[in-house]
């Protein structure tokens, strides 16, 4: 009965509170007059306002278990991607995995093969880190104005989250890596058991075996209940639904490191194991598909990131690349994380071209699209980090600039 009386007291208190609210009148327009309806009740798991419609863009293909959905970069603020809008890239659909049943096996060239439950993994000392994950195919070289009229499709295969989990190096020291082991074969528990070979050196540096994303468990689309997070490296190597890590002496030449995610050069050879996502930036306002409301004040903004560390500088050109202005950068500037840049702008109503150029802490400067093509040729599909200009037309509409 104690429970009931507590509840009654609570109801009385809320009733009194509502009375206070309804009794409290602000001076204002006619909207403030008269009775008002009480709002929605408490809820166990929150959702966004019904007025908000931002969504991932889905491909037009028939098969949606294989492919990518794109983060609406132009509609986001700040640097963290809401988990519901994190881009997707699946090779065999999103598996349904019961975390009670899930296991992580570490075996191969180790002194002690080990198998962990999720509960055991959560007992290890944990770490959290904010970093981006970018698909190697983001801004695919074949994406022209027709295929990618908006920044969502041209650059939306990058997202940024706070990831939590266990350092892979810690798990490896528990298993005892044997001399001669140089690579780790990482395998997922999705239907195709997607796998990649990853250099041991990176594992000993900063790879996280992650179970958390933005304060809660990973989303199923991002690998629930367990995934690799490899700061700064191409998305595909961040194996989702992680079930197995095998220490080996050589890369296993899996499908996704030979036939895919390799970079064709003009002489017909291909670069392999090009893991790092180089410094890149893109203006999200103004960007393709948007329309300026008229002449006057705006804030040019966008995102910059580098797999090699912090963003040191972002320059913006509003005259087709003739001159560059330094944009302000959001703090904290974290290594291998999205960094927002901003620049106040007064549009005079004339046609112009807007673009951004990032420099990272290693001194690397984001190249132009033309400069990349000149060295790599046009068959180099992945890892396109070239500068992307947007054209503002005199009527305020914004379009992609044909390369």
């Amino acid at each position, binding site marked *: 009965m104690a429970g009931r009386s507590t509840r009654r007291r609570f109801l009385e208190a809320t009733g009194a509170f509502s009375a206070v609210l309804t009794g409290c009148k602000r001076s204002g327009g006619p909207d403030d007059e008269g009775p008002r309806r009480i709002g929605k009740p408490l809820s166990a798991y929150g959702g966004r306002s019904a007025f908000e419609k931002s969504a991932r863009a889905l491909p037009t293909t028939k098969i949606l278990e294989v492919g990518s959905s794109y983060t609406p970069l132009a509609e986001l603020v700040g640097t963290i991607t809401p988990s519901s809008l994190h881009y997707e890239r699946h090779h065999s659909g999103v598996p349904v995995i019961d975390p009670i049943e899930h296991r992580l096996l570490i075996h191969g060239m180790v002194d002690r093969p080990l198998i962990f439950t999720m509960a055991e993994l959560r007992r290890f000392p944990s770490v959290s880190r904010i970093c981006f994950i970018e698909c190697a195919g983001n801004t695919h070289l074949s994406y022209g104005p027709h295929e990618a009229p908006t920044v969502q499709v041209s650059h939306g295969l990058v997202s940024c989250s706070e990831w939590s989990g266990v350092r892979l190096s810690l798990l490896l020291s528990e298993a005892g890596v044997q001399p001669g082991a140089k690579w780790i074969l990482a395998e997922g528990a999705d239907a195709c058991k997607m796998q990649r070979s990853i250099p041991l050196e990176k594992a000993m540096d900063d790879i996280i075996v992650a179970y958390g994303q933005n304060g809660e468990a990973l989303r199923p689309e991002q690998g629930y209940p367990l995934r690799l997070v490899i700061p700064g490296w191409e998305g595909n190597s961040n194996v989702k639904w992680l079930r197995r890590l095998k220490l080996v002496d050589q890369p296993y030449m899996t499908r996704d490191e030979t036939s895919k995610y390799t970079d*064709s050069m003009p002489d017909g050879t291909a670069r392999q194991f090009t893991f790092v996502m180089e410094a890149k930036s893109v203006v999200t306002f103004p960007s393709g598909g948007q329309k300026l409301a008229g002449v006057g004040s705006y804030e040019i903004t966008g995102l910059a990131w580098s797999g090699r560390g912090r963003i040191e500088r972002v320059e913006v050109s509003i005259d087709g690349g003739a001159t560059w202005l330094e944009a302000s950068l959001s703090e904290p500037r974290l290594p291998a994380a999205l960094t927002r840049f901003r620049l106040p702008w007064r549009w005079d109503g004339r046609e112009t071209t807007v673009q951004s150029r990032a420099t990272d802490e290693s001194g690397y400067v984001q190249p132009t699209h033309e400069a990349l093509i000149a060295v790599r040729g046009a068959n180099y599909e992945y890892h396109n980090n070239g500068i992307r200009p947007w054209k503002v037309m005199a009527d305020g509409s914004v379009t992609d600039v044909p390369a």
Partner: protein
Amino acid sequence: MCRLKLALAYILCTTLFAQSPKYGLGRTPTPEEVHAMDITPAPDGTGLPEGRGTALEGREVYSRRCARCHGPKGEGGDEPKQAKLVGGRGSLKTAKPLKTAGSYWPYATTIWDYVNRAMPLDHPGTLTHNQVYALTAWILQMNGIAGENDVLDAKTLPLIKMPNRDGFCAGRQAGCRNEANCEGEEGGCEERPLILKHISNR
């Protein structure tokens, strides 16, 4: 001498510490558990299971399980885009490279492994090892790399040298920082230098 002893003691200590588990979490997997998950063959064939198959046998399985997406002769269909299995030899240098198992994939073991783990797209994991060997043989035969009666098994499959075996360079995994600002760094395996001087407009 004393210094040598110290060094030895240091090495011994660090080795012992490095090699002993600190948290005692997890357990030793059973051999059956490892065997069930350890499905990936190495490019030298280590880990390939028992079984065998020929292209002739593979053609029959292919027509039932694969042709719907990959086309009757491996020519591919509308969707999924990557479904083309045949052709493209000599195209990698051209403006329209066609990357197929025959023209691009460097290891036959990768074909076996990918068919085994990921195909057919809508029912992965339903092919027997014999069927996977047979389908690998059929894909190789369609590309003129194996004969229709060649028997593929754990011994013969890794002996096949794919046409594009030497078409990859892996020197960049930890070396050169891309083209821009690449001066002074080794690590690429390109024949021509990939140095791109960035001219700052600042």
